Each structure stands twice: as C-alpha cells, then as structure tokens.
C-alpha cells in the first residue's frame, strides 16, 4: 500500500510537470499550427532569469513572477522577430527555425549564465507530508506543482471559453482571414498566443527546477515526455494536454516503481506509438469536418 501511494503521488507530480509542458506546446499549436521545439530552452532561459532574481533578492516568489513575465516577453519576441518572417513559407521552415532556436538558446544560456550546475530553491519543504501520523509520499512542493498546473488549466479554459480575447484568439487560429474580416487583429492574437504559451512553458521550467539543479540542458529530459503527453492528449486540446500529461506521469511512475526504471523511456515510446496507431489525433481530439 505504501509503495502504491508513493508511486501514485509521484506519478501525479511528474504528470503535472509534463502536463504544463504539453499545455505550452498545445497553446502554440492551436494558435499557429507550429510545434515549438524551442519550448524547453525558452523555459530554461526564463528559469535562469528567475534564478538570478532569486539569488539577488532572496525572494523565491519575486523570481517566480519575473520568470513568468520573462516568458511572456520572450514568447512575444520570438513570434514577432522570428516566427512571423517564415510564416507561410512552408511548415518545415518553421520547424527548422524552432530547432535552430533550440541550439542557439542553449549556447546563449551557457555564455550568459555559465554551464555549471546551480541549485534552484523550492518555496516549500521537500520532505514528505505528515497526515494523521502517517508519512505521505508527496512533498509540499509536489502539491504546489499539481495545484499550480490545475490553476493554469482552469485559467486558460476560462480565457478561451468565456472571454472576448479568447474568442478572438480562437477565431484567429482557426480561420485567420475570416477573423480579419470581422475586425480581429490576427497578428496581435498570434503574438499573444506565443506569449501565453511561453508563460506556461516558464512555469514548467520553474516546477522542474524547484529543489533541483539547473544547467543549460536541465529541461532536455522533459522534452520527449512533454511531447508524448501533448500527442497523447491531442495537441489541439488544453484539457487533453493536461490529462495526457497526468496519464503519462502515472504510467511511467508505475513502470518505474513496479517493473524497472530502465524501461521508462521505452514505455514512453510505446505509449506514443500506440496513440498514433489507435487515435492519431490524440485522446481528446474532435476532428472538425474540413471543407476541401
């Protein structure tokens, strides 16, 4: 029982991290039909920015806020200065652009922040919680991780479903020309989409970094799992991304806890291939009929 709970809660925490990463991918996919391979290094850079602020001021939360704000700015800049110029030039060009950005940001981070391992603080304790005299296998930071991702999901769903800006963003993503004719400033909506995605990406970076070591490649191990989570849930659906993340976190945690830790990467691959075979659009896709 103890092991089951440990595995379950560990999986949920891990899943929440994958979920936030997948959510960021989903936001950009929804608004620009681009898979942003530079998501992880962008989050790495903003996490470094947060770390510098934390070290300078001693306040975790100030660093947290600055990292999210830096994500907003970085996302907007990447869209305005880079992505916009290759738009309409074929999907492959954008993919290569984001891959190039992946390499460039790694190099840049090593130059600016150094490539040493630096420890990143966590705002809450990293010891297991005690509930009614029992040890529960989840840390306060783990709880924070799950709650933070939940809040972000709810806020995003509210944004898209219930606000005018959300409606404009969806219109701009689904049908840019019609949206323009209805007065939507499509370019501004795309920039906003990238900016929000980068904020969510930054959150993923902060959640992974908390209580761990930060170095230019520290996000790379999450990239693959984040992508699998996004595909699992369906790149188009924010709710799907989060559920996909949680499912993947749980599956991997149980494989690692009950079978063997070495099998984790293979399991992720099997999940990916399985989803692509059975439901290529992801578990939560509702493929809208397209006129040809």
């Amino acid at each position, binding site marked *: 029982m103890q092991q089951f709970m440990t595995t379950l809660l560990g999986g949920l925490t891990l899943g929440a991290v994958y979920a936030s990463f997948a959510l960021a991918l989903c936001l950009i996919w929804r608004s620009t039909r681009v898979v942003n391979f530079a998501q992880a290094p962008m989050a790495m850079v903003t996490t470094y920015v947060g770390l510098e602020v934390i070290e300078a001021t001693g306040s975790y939360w100030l660093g947290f806020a600055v990292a999210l704000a830096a994500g907003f700015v970085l996302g907007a800049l990447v869209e305005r200065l880079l992505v916009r110029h290759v738009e309409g030039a074929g999907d492959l060009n954008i993919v290569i652009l984001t891959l190039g950005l992946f390499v460039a940001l790694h190099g840049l981070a090593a130059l600016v922040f150094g490539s040493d391992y630096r420890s990143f603080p966590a705002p809450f304790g990293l010891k297991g919680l005690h509930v009614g005299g029992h040890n529960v296998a989840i840390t306060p930071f783990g709880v924070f991780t799950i709650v933070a991702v939940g809040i972000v999901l709810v806020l995003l769903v509210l944004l898209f479903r219930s606000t005018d800006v959300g409606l404009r963003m969806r*219109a701009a993503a*689904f049908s840019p*020309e*019609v*949206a323009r*004719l*209805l*007065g*939507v400033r499509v370019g501004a909506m795309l920039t906003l989409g990238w900016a929000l995605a980068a904020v969510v990406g930054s959150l993923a970076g902060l959640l992974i970094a908390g209580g761990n070591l930060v170095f230019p490649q520290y996000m790379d191990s999450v990239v693959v799992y984040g992508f699998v989570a996004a595909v699992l849930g369906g790149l188009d659906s924010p709710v799907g991304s989060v559920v996909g993340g949680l499912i993947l976190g749980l599956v991997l945690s149980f494989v690692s806890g009950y079978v063997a830790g070495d099998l984790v990467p293979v399991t992720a691959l099997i999940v990916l291939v399985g989803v692509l075979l059975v439901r290529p659009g992801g578990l939560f896709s509702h493929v809208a009929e397209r006129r040809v």
Partner: protein
Amino acid sequence: MLAVHDLTTTYGAVTALDGVSLEAPAGQVTAVLGANGAGKTTLLRTVSGLVRAQRGAVSLEGTDITRLPAERMTGLGIAHVPEGRGVIAELTVAENLRLGGLHRRQGSEPERLERVYELFPVLGDRSNALAHVLSGGERQMLVIGRALMARPRVLLLDEPSLGLAPRVVAQIFALLRTLVERDGLTVLLVEQNATSALSIADRGVVLGLGRVVATEPAERLAADEKLRHAYLGF
C-alpha cells in the same frame, strides 16, 4: 455610398481587375455579375483590403479607404461576407455571431443576438451547436447574421447563392431586400446567378475579364439579350 475608381489588382503577371470603376449607392442593391474569372471576388477582396490594389481608389461616403487593412473594415461599417460560407466551423453558432459584433459595439450584445435570431430562427434553435454541423443554407444565414451583428452600413456579399437550393436562395435574397428597404443597408452583391441577383438588385454591373462591360438599371440589364448571352449565360 461606396465608390470604386479605376481599381486595378494583379496577382503576379495576371491582371484580375483592370481599371474597374463603379458605385454602390446608399440604400440600394448593386449586383456585380459575370462569369467565373471575371474578377468579381477579387473586386470584393480589394475593396475590403484583403488584397492590395495596384492602382485606383476605394472610398466610403467620400473618405478614401483604399489602403486600410481588412481588420479596420468592420469598424467603419463595412461587412464583407466571404464566399464559401466562411463560417468558423470550430466555433459554435453563438460564438460566430458574437465574434461578428466584437469590433463595432452598437447596442447591447443580447439585443443584437435577439435581432439576428428573429431574422433567422433556425440559428436561435442551434445556437450552441458547432457551426460545422450546419447545412449549406444555415451556414449562409450564419455568415449574413454574423455580418449584421456589427450593424453595418455596407454589406459586401460574395456569391451567397453558391451551392444552395433555389428555394433557400429565394428565401435569403428576399430577406436581403427586406433589410435594404427597412434599414437602408447598402449592398454590393457579387453573383454568378444573374437571374436571382437581378431580381432583387436596383442596379447591375457586368464584369468581363476584369473590366466593366456594362452598368445598367437591373430591369434593363435583365432585358438586354445580347449582354445576357455574352456575359451572363442566360
């Protein structure tokens, strides 16, 4: 009044519009007729700023709007209803309609929605359905209703009859006529279906290969056998 003067639009080496001048007087339906490739759709796309004009000018009530981007049109009171029933299939009927009124807030949203549902009761019945489940006729009603949400002064309609059953076409055209008479709407109606278009139009403009071939009152155009045979195919 919407006026177009000497408008020329090219796509690479192809000249789609070649010095077109025409007027859409306020409170009237002006039908733009012609075969496929005559430049009808390009005319509307250039007027609303989706394509840049090579030469010439577009003006609304005497104000030059030639270089304004497409997203400014709604605010000016020009609603361009694109061809191919440009509903946003992934949004619900109500969301499509709300979107139409976001950038020109005249009157409260519920009130404007109510008015559109009055004109098109079927949209009210299906307000929470995704637009992609609608039939062709319902989609056409949705795009017209969505344009009306902005309370436009000028309606640019691109082939509203395309692919619709004659009965539905008659219904939609009759409604357009009502809107023109009741609200003083100015309509520039681009159509291949000349018979239907001329039945509600005040004036007709015939385009052939990007040029204006004739501008006549609608009845006279409908009676001009030579023109009909040469350009309108009936």
